[in-house]
């Protein structure tokens, strides 16, 4: 195999190319990127085999909606308070959604089985996850084309020991509500992405479909 010189145009592109090359040499599945909705384009990236921490339910739904709209199946595990209407408004195709509200002690097996067949699994763990279970799931993810989003309460560090990236919604503001007047029209938030390297952030309006 001949090694061609790399075209150096951007540091990130170089890293991507190198990663792709390592994957190809290792023989594992290349890490494909999973579509994200247009509001998060250029800010958040999801790659198959990755684990990402999210601290807001609506942001988790938005992240999952890209793949769902593209025709993939998504699953929500441990969401015993899943808001169906909000999910539909945020662009998740309910016909391609699997919900396991209370997996209980079986959460590890459920997640492992679902990442086999779904594109995105959004897990809300009951407590902190021990590194051994995490490594089991991560090994499984690497051999499949799936993404795991871990939803934790705001402010907590995240239940997953080492996530590829952390998405958090900060400076959340609600439009349209006055003091006894108006109604909720929309939600704005500054989405902060913490990856390896410098944190990246942008203010977005959550894409609730007009109803």
């Amino acid at each position, binding site marked *: 195999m001949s090694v061609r010189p790399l075209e150096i145009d951007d540091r990130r592109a170089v890293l991507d190319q190198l990663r792709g090359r390592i994957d190809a040499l290792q023989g594992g599945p290349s890490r494909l990127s999973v579509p994200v909705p247009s509001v998060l384009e250029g800010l958040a990236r999801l790659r198959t085999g990755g684990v990402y921490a999210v601290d807001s339910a609506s942001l988790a739904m938005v992240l999952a909606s890209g793949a769902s709209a593209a025709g993939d199946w998504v699953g929500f595990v441990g969401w015993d308070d899943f*808001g*169906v*209407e909000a999910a539909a408004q945020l662009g998740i195709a*309910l016909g391609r959604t*699997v919900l396991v509200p209370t997996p209980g002690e079986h959460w590890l*097996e459920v997640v492992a089985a679902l990442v086999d067949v779904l594109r995105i699994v959004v897990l809300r763990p009951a407590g902190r996850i021990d590194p051994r279970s995490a490594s089991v799931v991560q090994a499984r993810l690497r051999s499949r084309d799936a993404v795991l989003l871990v939803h934790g309460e705001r402010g907590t560090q995240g239940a997953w020991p080492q996530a590829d990236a952390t998405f958090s919604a900060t400076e959340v503001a609600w439009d349209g509500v006055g003091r006894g007047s108006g109604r*909720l029209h929309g939600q704005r938030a500054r989405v902060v992405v913490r990856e390896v390297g410098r944190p990246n952030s942008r203010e977005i309006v959550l894409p609730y479909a007009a109803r």
Partner: protein
Amino acid sequence: MSARILVVWCPDWSVTAALMERAETGAPVERGAPAAVLSANRVVVCNGPARAEGVRRGQRRRDAQARCPDLLLLAAGPERDARWFEDVLIAVEEVRPGVSPIRPGLLAVPAPGRYHGGEEAAAALLAEELVGAGVWDCRFGIADDLFAAERAARAADAQGCVVVPRGASAQFVGDLPITVLADDGPDGQRLADLLHRLGLNRLREFAAFGAGEVSNRFGSYGVEIQRRVRGSTTRLAGPRTPPPELACEIGFEPALDSAEAVTFSVRTTAERFVAVLADRQLVATAVRIEAEFEDLAPDGRGISARTWLHPGCFTSRDLVDRVHWQLQAGTPGSGLRSRKEAGAVTAPITRVRFVPDTVEAAGDHADGLWGGGAEEQVLRGVARVQAMVGYDAVRVPVLQGGRGAGDRQAWVAWGERPTDLRPTDPPWPGRIPGPAPTRVFATPLRAEVVDERGRGVTVTERGVVTGAPYRCRAGFPGRSGWWAIAAWAGPWPVDEGWWHAEGAPGRSARFQVVGTDGSAWLLCWRESGWEVEAEYE
């Protein structure tokens, strides 16, 4: 020597079938109570007790009820009649093969001659068999031809038999009054009326007409009747082929008392069931699983039956899973199977039976040439999860109509078809517009809302809020204590369910509340107090 014909007639079959179905669903059924089957507001069929009260065929519902106030009204169901008559056909087939069903309530079978000790003895045997199957009113007629045998059955008493001797059919039919033709429906009714007005009283007199004249004047129906009356026709509908037995069952001796043991033992039966269907190029999409168990009560046995649906089609493995879920359903915590639980069942199981409920052509469910699509893989993967955590633990979210956040959604068990959902199309006045909450609590949390001076906020009957919400407190896990309200909207008042006698939710009003910390909530005020229904997160 031609074979003679035995006709079995179950009078007012529609009523009998409807009552049998009612009895199966557990509704109280009193034999001998007046009942009638209605279609389009008119009586189609009524039973003997109803007729004794003056109810007649063709009567309007109102008139029938006026004559007999405690008349039990039943909806017409031709499929139901046919379905329940199947049991009668099987019962008769047990005794005498070659059954030809004529219509629900009426069947013909070759008379057995001397085999059962004579024709009347055979009829008595059949009567015993049918009463055993729950059909009390069955009447038998035996004659050389079908028409005479049917007339003979109509002349018999309940569970009785009328035998027309060999060669005496024409004689027997000739003695019948003209009015019996009215049983043949509107055509017969018209002919009977006309012949009556012509001054004819007995069918014999009709037989004396010339065939040409009858054909000219009364058409094909008249000719047919005349041929029958003369005894020159021997019509017998072709005997039916009994439907193939697709149900499979397995008995356990001694009875098994652990679900694991049962599921292990039914595996081969499930494989056989799928294979039998596959031989006929069929697959099952709905299967009824019946498990018989030894009842601890002195009277013996009980049965647990449930119909399971499958989003694709059943494989033997799926069936085994269903058996497990069904047996586990009786024990507490059925949704989630604990690892430690030994899988005990409520009572020892003696028999498991698979009955196909809906079958479809295998071609419609076959894998594509290049293997199953993504959909197939998902179905299989999710079935694996279901096998792990239980049938009810895997859900599909669906939308439905309603006002509260919790009312507007439903989670349907994976594989079930959603039923009884409220439609989303009509406007639901009082529902909250705009973005929906992302977290909807299954059981709303109790909350407390006070105004600036610390007085509890309520909503009056006219929908006026007594004070501006200022602080709120609710029993969130890990977040207790008061938090300040930055903005609020509402109320959206609703007065629901007052039309139900009890358990009405009553008056309520919803509020959207934004806290100073950036959290947003859907609060609901009820007469019983405040609740947190959902969170916008």
